[in-house]
């Protein structure tokens, strides 16, 4: 572990301290177990633990039904990321450029799409634009708002990455006669992109979560399929819990990958 204040907030405990920590540990385990038990009891008391209400989610047809939704979720997330990430990089470059016009455009874009809810953008595509004769298939009614919102967030990620690349790198590139543009393209950017890779994976997590707004445009992503399944099974808590767990597991995997990448890069930075 890296050195930080968290490591010295308390001493290595002595015998008395150890006893106290043990006692507090036992108490907190009891408290946590109590909370979980109370939650489970609430489920039981309301008949929601009835195995019949859970085993249906092992039925192949229901799983396939949710699987379709998951496939939809992954498709829109991937499509949005493929466009939004390069777009975010361009926005970051515009924001760091010497042209004040480009900077102004980039800043306005970024602040605008960072500050308004994606739901509003989705509604614009669903309800406002059709009034002007501009309509998109529902896949794009979901993906375009995801791109717009994510591009603003990833622009900031890339900007931080570019700024984090050592100033000496810019100077070294200039010293060997590279133009500003060449230095950016062949020296700074490759390092910056590597640097921001973990943050980009977290942006992917955000995109995946935002894809639940497909619920609004009737796109058959996981949340929407879950909603339909509620009508068929009538097991509301169970269905939405199953759906939520799927989201959490996928995002957890992505977050783990991001953390592992981050740790590897930090280790490499320390080594060099």
């Amino acid at each position, binding site marked *: 572990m890296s050195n930080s204040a968290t490591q010295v907030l308390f001493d290595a405990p002595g015998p008395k301290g150890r006893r106290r920590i043990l006692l507090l540990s036992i108490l907190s385990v009891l408290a946590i177990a109590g909370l979980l038990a109370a939650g489970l009891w609430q489920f039981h008391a309301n008949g929601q633990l009835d195995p019949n209400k859970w085993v249906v989610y092992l*039925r192949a*047809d*229901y799983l396939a*039904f949710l699987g379709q939704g998951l496939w939809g979720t992954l498709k829109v997330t991937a499509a949005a990321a493929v466009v939004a990430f390069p777009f975010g990089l361009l926005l970051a470059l515009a924001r760091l450029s010497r042209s004040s016009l480009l900077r102004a455009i980039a800043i306005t874009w970024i602040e605008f799409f960072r500050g308004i809810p994606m739901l509003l953008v989705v509604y614009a595509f*669903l*309800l406002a634009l*059709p009034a002007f004769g501009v*309509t*998109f*298939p*529902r896949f794009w*009614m979901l993906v375009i708002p995801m791109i717009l919102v994510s591009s603003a967030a990833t622009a900031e990620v890339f900007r931080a990455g570019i700024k984090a690349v050592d100033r000496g790198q810019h100077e070294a590139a200039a010293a060997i006669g590279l133009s500003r543009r060449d230095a950016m393209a062949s020296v700074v950017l490759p390092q910056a992109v590597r640097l921001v890779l973990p943050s980009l994976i977290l942006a992917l997590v955000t995109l995946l979560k935002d894809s639940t707004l497909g*619920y*609004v*445009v*009737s796109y*058959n992503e996981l949340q*929407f399929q879950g*909603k*339909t399944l*509620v*009508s*068929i099974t*009538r097991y*509301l808590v169970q269905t939405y819990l199953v759906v939520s767990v799927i989201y959490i597991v996928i995002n957890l995997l992505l977050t783990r990958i991001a953390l592992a990448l981050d740790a590897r890069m930090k280790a490499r930075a320390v080594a060099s």
Partner: protein
Amino acid sequence: MIASGPVAAEDAIAASPWATAIKDKGQLIRGGTVANQVFSLASTSGGQPTGFDAGLTQLLAKYILGDGGEEKVEYIDTTVETRETMVQNGTVDCVIATYSITPERLEVISFAGPYYLSGTAVQVRTEDAETIAGPEDLTGLNLVTQANSTGIQAIEEHVTDPGKVETLPNNESCVAALKQGRVDAYVLDQGVLLGNSAADPEVTVVGDPFVDDPYGVGLSQDSEDALEFVNTFLQELIDSGAWDALWTATIGEVIDGEAPEPPVPGELPA
């Protein structure tokens, strides 16, 4: 039952660019729900959806695509909030989804039909069915309906001094709000409500419909020929007795009595 439905004459299809396009694609794309027990319910075992609207869709597909066409339907989900847009932008060929014909909606899309005369009704928790008999009993009670639905106007015009009126984005949420006691009644067209009570004994439709809700087939205003084509199809269904048979097999299961007199396709409500 679907298999015995009529098939359109070649020249009737050739006369309609809308039908020709569907025939060339080899597929009818229908917007709607697959979560309504009576009108359109997905089969989780891989078969076709069943119900009045689903049957109508399959009959229309067969009418255009010929024998076996009833299986060549792509079902795209739409909600009350998304239906108009989906029709306008051509995501679907038509919407068949307990879709009430209203003047507001006629401004942006067109409707073939009506093919069924439904009406706005009241759904309550089954234990309240004794005390609430219709809109006149809703004064002071908290109500729910779907966002952008005909229920909103029906409540404004027919319920004196309701309590809180909530709107939620879909049928599932409205049913949950009713069952969980957040509201005392759910006001919407009978087609949807009957589907709910068929699926769930905890909720019941009370009284008679109090506002007419004629259901139509939602079509894009860009394809003018579609309107006439679908109306002809509906008339053929009625003449051949297929309409009656479909009603008996679906809605007839949850409403007592004989099949009603079918509406006249093309006669839109004033």
